[in-house]
Structure formats: structure tokens, C-alpha cells
């Protein structure tokens, strides 16, 4: 081997940069890691394990505590639940964990005890059909299949938990591109198919959350 080539290799090795630091490992989208996300049981745990994921590199979450603390200063923090259709950090009264979310409801005004409740987290939603009445037990029903529709595009959402669905990056991009467009979910339950309409106010609040947590930088 020629001495100048050997010297070059040694120089590279002695630079001390890991492949991740040097961006030599190709970053992947979280879309390709949904199974791993489920196994890791939390996005923060997955990001600690696999930092090459784009969302982990660019977005802000519990894996970037300093940035997250700064982001928290720009949105309200509410114990238990924030107002409907507004972005805020939901503070768990037990663990004091602060989780960014937007909660909205879709119900018929003539029967408000029946409807859908959707909670948006940065990369997942919780969608539940509720049915109650004065004095009877509140019944939740979780859809078995959910398809999101926005701007003529449709996205089949992978189920990650009971009532929990992953939001693919394409859908996040579509929402960020047109925050005033109407968003709806086709939810299939054991009692039939339902269309869940999301208010533009809630969509706008979700966009706000994505922007604050740098998810708009994940292309």
C-alpha cells in the first residue's frame, strides 16, 4: 500500500467521528420503523436506540430535553387535559410528564353524548368512539381500521395500540402544506363505518404543534 493512502486512512480513523456523527449512516424515516416503535413502547426510547431516524434527528421530543423545555415555553401546559381544539402540553397529574397534544371531538349537536374523540400527538392519534347517557356507563369503541383523507389524498394508518394509530410522514406533510384543508378519518368499527370530521381549528392546532416541535423540518 502506498504511504500517502495509508496516511489518509489513518487520518480518517483518528478523527474520532462516529458514523452517526459524520452522517455516514443513511437516515431513515420513522415510517420504516413503526414495528420497532411499537416494540420500543415509546418514541423517546426508540430515538435513544436508533438516532439515525429522521424524526429523532430533526424533531424535538423527550430525547432532546433542553430543546423540549424551550418549546414548552411557547404553549400552555394544562393538568390532565387542555381545551378542545387547542394545542397544549398535557400534564399527567400522577407522573407530571408533559405530553404535547391536540384534542378534538366530532359529534352530532342533537346527541352530544355520542361521537368521536380524537387526540393528536406528533406522530400518532388516539381515536375513540364514545357513547354515553345520563346515568349509564360510558362506552368506548376503538376502530379496527382508520383511513385519513386530506386534500384528495388518503392514508391508511397503521394501528399501534388499542385506538392508537401512527401518522405517516406523508400525512404530516400534507397537513403542514395545507393547514386549512378539511381532514377526515374513515373509521371502521365492529358496529359499522363512520366518518370523523376534524375541525379546521384542530388541524391548525396540530400544525402548530408540528412546527413548534420541528416536525416541519422532517422532509
Amino acid at each position, binding site marked *: 500500500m502506498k504511504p500517502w493512502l495509508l496516511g489518509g486512512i489513518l487520518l480518517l480513523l483518528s478523527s474520532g467521528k462516529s458514523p452517526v456523527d459524520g452522517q455516514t449512516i443513511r437516515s431513515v424515516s420513522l415510517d420504516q420503523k413503526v414495528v420497532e*416503535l411499537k416494540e420500543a413502547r415509546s418514541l423517546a426510547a426508540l430515538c435513544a436506540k436508533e438516532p439515525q431516524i429522521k424524526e429523532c434527528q430533526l424533531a424535538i421530543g423527550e430525547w432532546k430535553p433542553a430543546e423540549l423545555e424551550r418549546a414548552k415555553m411557547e404553549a400552555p401546559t394544562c393538568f390532565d387535559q387542555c381545551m378542545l381544539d387547542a394545542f397544549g402540553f398535557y400534564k399527567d397529574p400522577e407522573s407530571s410528564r408533559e405530553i*404535547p397534544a391536540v384534542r378534538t371531538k366530532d359529534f352530532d349537536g342533537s346527541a352530544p353524548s355520542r361521537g368521536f374523540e380524537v387526540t393528536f400527538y406528533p406522530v400518532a392519534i388516539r381515536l375513540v368512539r364514545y357513547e354515553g347517557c345520563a346515568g349509564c*356507563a360510558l362506552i368506548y369503541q376503538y376502530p379496527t381500521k382508520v383511513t385519513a383523507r386530506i386534500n384528495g389524498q388518503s392514508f391508511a394508518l397503521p394501528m399501534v395500540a388499542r385506538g*392508537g394509530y401512527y401518522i405517516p410522514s406523508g400525512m404530516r406533510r400534507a397537513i403542514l402544506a395545507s393547514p386549512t384543508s378539511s381532514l377526515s378519518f374513515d373509521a371502521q368499527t365492529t358496529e359499522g363505518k363512520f366518518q370523523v370530521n376534524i375541525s379546521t381549528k384542530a388541524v391548525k392546532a396540530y400544525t402548530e404543534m408540528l412546527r413548534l416541535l420541528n416536525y416541519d423540518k422532517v422532509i
Partner: protein
Amino acid sequence: MKALFRSLCATAILGGAAIPVSAQIGSPNVSSSSTVQNVFCEKNLKSTVTRISKTILPSGYSDLKDVQLNSDFRYPSNDLPFSEAMALNDPVTGQSVAVLDQNFIPGGSKVFSSWGRHGISIGGYWFYKTGGGFSTPIGNFVPFEADVLWISDGSSFLVIKGCNGRFTVTKEVAEALRNYPAGKNGYIRFSTEGTGSAILSEIGKSTVEAWKKVYANWTPDAPPKVESLGF
């Protein structure tokens, strides 16, 4: 009167669906048990305190209705479906899965049963009619709670002893109910407190089918939370 009995029985059996007991399947964790002096009692009796972990449901029950048991005794008319497996979320004891069943003579006696993952409850009321002829007939509803339960299990049967209408579900009981022949009605026998007779009662075939979901073979493992997956 009858409605009151019905509502009391329904409330009682529903409460039994998620009652965790140490020796049952799903192994709810009994972390401590202690005997303490009851300072509020003049007779200086000993009280016991037992700490039990709340029960959890694994993934696999997404298709079931998730009933939040948030209506208390003031609203006894629970419109919960019979013969349909349901996920239950009890604010006190935790999550469970159960199926309710009823067997009755219209206008007469009734047997309620709740087949929960961790406990079975059987109760109801007997209807006795007296008088008639030249006097006005009087109907009496007498509530009961089962204390011995017989369940068929292939070529043998299980005799399960309980009290106050409640029975613990062990692995053996769960296996017998899970493997009960589906597609037709089932039968149980039970005797009530203070009597030796073993009453035969039919269980609807939908309830028998639901037993396969309720007593499915799993070990408790909390599913991930959506908020953790999404943030």
C-alpha cells in the same frame, strides 16, 4: 321491587367481573397484606389491609366495547349487553374482560351471571307466588347468591366453592370455560347459600362463544400507551 332486585343483582355481578384475587389467572399482584388494630372499633377488632395491583389487559381486545364503569349505585340501570364479551375499565380494580349472561322466566325468577377474566359472579332472585283463588295473589322476590358452582370439563366436572355469589377463576376453571363446546347452549349447576340443592341453569350459546375471548390464553403485559408512541 323486582326492578330494584334486578338492578342490585346487576350491579353486584358487574362488580365481580374485575375483582382481583391472588390465586386467579392473569396473576394480579398481591404485594402486601397486613393485620392492623381497628382503632375505630370499640371491641378492638383486628382489621386487614391488602394491597393488590390493578389488573391490565393486553393488546388483542381492540374489537371489544370498552365499558368505563363510571355509573355508580345511583344509576343502577346499566344498559350493558348480555352474551357479548366486553372490556371493562373499573376505576378501582383495573381493566378486565367479561361477559354477562341472564336466564329467566318472563315475569318470574332470574339468574344473572358475570363471567370475568378474574372472577365469576352468580346471583339473582327467585319468584314465589302465594295466594290466588279467592284471595289476591302476592308475588315475592327473594334474592340469592350462589356459593357452589359446577362446571362441565370434558369427561369430568369442576366443583368451585365461593362465597357471596363470587368465585375465583383459576387456570383450570379458565381452561374448562375456554374449551367448552361452542355453537350450542351450555349448562352450569349451582347451589345457593343456605341450601343444598344444585340448580341447573342454561347459559346462552353466545356467552359460551364469548368465553373463548374472555378466557383466552395470555399473560398480562401492559400494551404501550398511545401518547408514548406518538411523542
